[in-house]
């Protein structure tokens, strides 16, 4: 996502039209931006260009000094590797599963919190708490305190002796991720609900619309952009999931929960195949560009909406 910058929506107008000043004025305007811009380019873009270069070499760190140029060989290896294909599938399943379920649960919570009731602030605080627990702490908590077959809380409450992590590894990881990310979805959707115009909702009620009709015909269309935003930002963060895989399943059993970040990590630090790891990294970036292009479009349209309000 570094080589191309998606074009923003042309309809997005600048907050203040830049005046046509002289060269000096332009530099005065630019000066505050430059340190951040240069910093970001140096730390993110240059390493990525180097990743592209590394992806064309055959470099295993266990064979130092020997780094021949191999062109697209690494890409061929990576794309024909069944481990990587399964990692790709796992990434999609884990990300989509976590995003969809956290979005649904987040919507339910947001609808509950959109009403007035005693202690609403406290309930909101309770509901955002899982998002704030350190992700690796959350993952270990679920693994040991909840999913454990002999003394885990889930078996303790519902009975049985299921080894949740071994029997349902994907579901176990998704459950943990959903628990952590539901608050994120809830906060975005709650912001969406609260930006609804009360007069319009009141008018609909006066016209005899029932709660379900209002929800279907007015709330959901209004929330659409917020749902999209939550899904896309959630996907961007969740595609990178590493903590949960590393600590709950270590990618297993077998490769059942090995996602792309974890697979690249293994290629880098277990197999020391730097060339292959780089090629896999570049492929992930290309896939992310595709998703991110949609994300940027959604964000642009939200900007537009804000200005029209």
């Amino acid at each position, binding site marked *: 996502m570094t080589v191309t910058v998606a074009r923003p929506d042309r309809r997005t107008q600048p907050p203040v039209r830049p005046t046509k000043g002289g060269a000096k004025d332009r530099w005065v305007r630019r000066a505050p*931006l430059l340190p951040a811009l240069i910093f970001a380019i140096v730390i993110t873009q240059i390493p990525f260009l180097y990743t592209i270069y590394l992806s064309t070499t055959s470099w295993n760190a266990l064979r130092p000094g020997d780094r021949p140029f191999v062109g697209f060989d690494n890409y061929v290896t990576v794309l024909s590797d069944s481990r990587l294909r399964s990692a790709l599938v796992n990434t999609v399943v884990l990300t989509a599963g976590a995003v969809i379920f956290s979005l649904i649960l987040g919507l339910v919570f947001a609808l509950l919190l959109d009403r007035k*009731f005693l*202690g609403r602030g406290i309930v909101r605080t309770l509901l955002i708490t899982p998002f704030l627990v350190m992700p690796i702490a959350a993952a270990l908590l679920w693994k040991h305190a909840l999913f454990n077959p002999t*003394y885990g809380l889930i078996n303790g409450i519902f009975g049985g002796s299921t080894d949740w992590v071994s029997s349902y590894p994907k579901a176990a990881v998704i459950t943990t991720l959903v628990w952590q990310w539901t608050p994120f979805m809830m906060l975005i959707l709650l912001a969406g609900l609260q930006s609804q115009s009360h007069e319009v909702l009141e008018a609909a009620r006066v016209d005899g619309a029932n709660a379900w009709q209002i929800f279907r015909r007015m709330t959901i269309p209004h929330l659409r952009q917020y749902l999209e935003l939550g899904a896309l930002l959630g996907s961007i963060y969740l595609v*990178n999931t590493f903590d949960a895989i590393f600590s709950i399943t270590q990618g297993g059993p077998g490769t059942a929960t090995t996602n792309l970040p974890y697979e690249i990590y293994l290629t880098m630090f277990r197999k020391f195949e*730097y060339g292959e790891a780089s090629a896999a990294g570049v492929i992930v970036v290309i896939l992310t560009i595709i998703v991110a292009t949609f994300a940027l479009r959604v964000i642009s349209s939200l900007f537009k909406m804000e200005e029209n309000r």
Partner: protein
Amino acid sequence: MRARLHDSIWGVVAWIAGIIFVFPVIWMVLTSFKQENVAATNPPSWFFAPTLAQYTQVFDRNITPFLLNSLMASIFSTILVVLLATPAAYALSLRPVAKWSDALFFFISTKMMPVVAAFLPVYLLVKHLGMLDNIWTMVILYTSMNLPLAVWMMRSFLLEVPREVLEAGEVDGAGLLTSIRKIVLPIVSPGLAATALICFIFAWNEFFLAVNLTATNSGTSPIFLVGFISSEGAFLARLCAAATIVSLPVLIAGWVAQNKLVRGLSMGAVK
């Protein structure tokens, strides 16, 4: 009257949902006050004599340096982020440069890049420079991780400065620095605080970079927890105590900043 009743029923439902949802966290805190043999019982023990033994254990096992490393990496990177992002956001909002939207989208695009894709060169360079296991390496990397978020967030707060007031100030002869100090800063300082808190939270919780770049000298809080990964829950109560300790700073920060949290998480796209 009926609407009132209706609302309170939904209120009860919301309370129940909230308590069930947060229950794993409550369970974590409860377990951290148990003895190991009490923690590992089936069925779970609800009533027990609370003890601080696990907390003493965790501190005896030297969690303090890890906490201090996290604190350093998070605070210094947050300061650096704010120092870089605030002027940049200013240049992208109140007195925008010509291609302000391209610059804005460039920043966000770096956030969308998976860390693993640019990590190897960073790792090799850091290793080459002998900067592995060094807290300043983490400060620099956390700064670049949070910079886009902060630029977007600060921009959305800066846009709230009423332009008329700024212009009136200029007409009255206020220079750039005066108007920043007297008009802009008072209005955006709550936003600035929220931005800093969110950057702190992300830096404090970061795991991937920490696990690959730090070890004994500069290990951050998540690294302390790595030791519990393969213990198969033999030290469940101690794990819970450690997890509670490392999560506490962010829990407090997040509860304080919850009103602004959504704005930061959506990078300012949603108010």
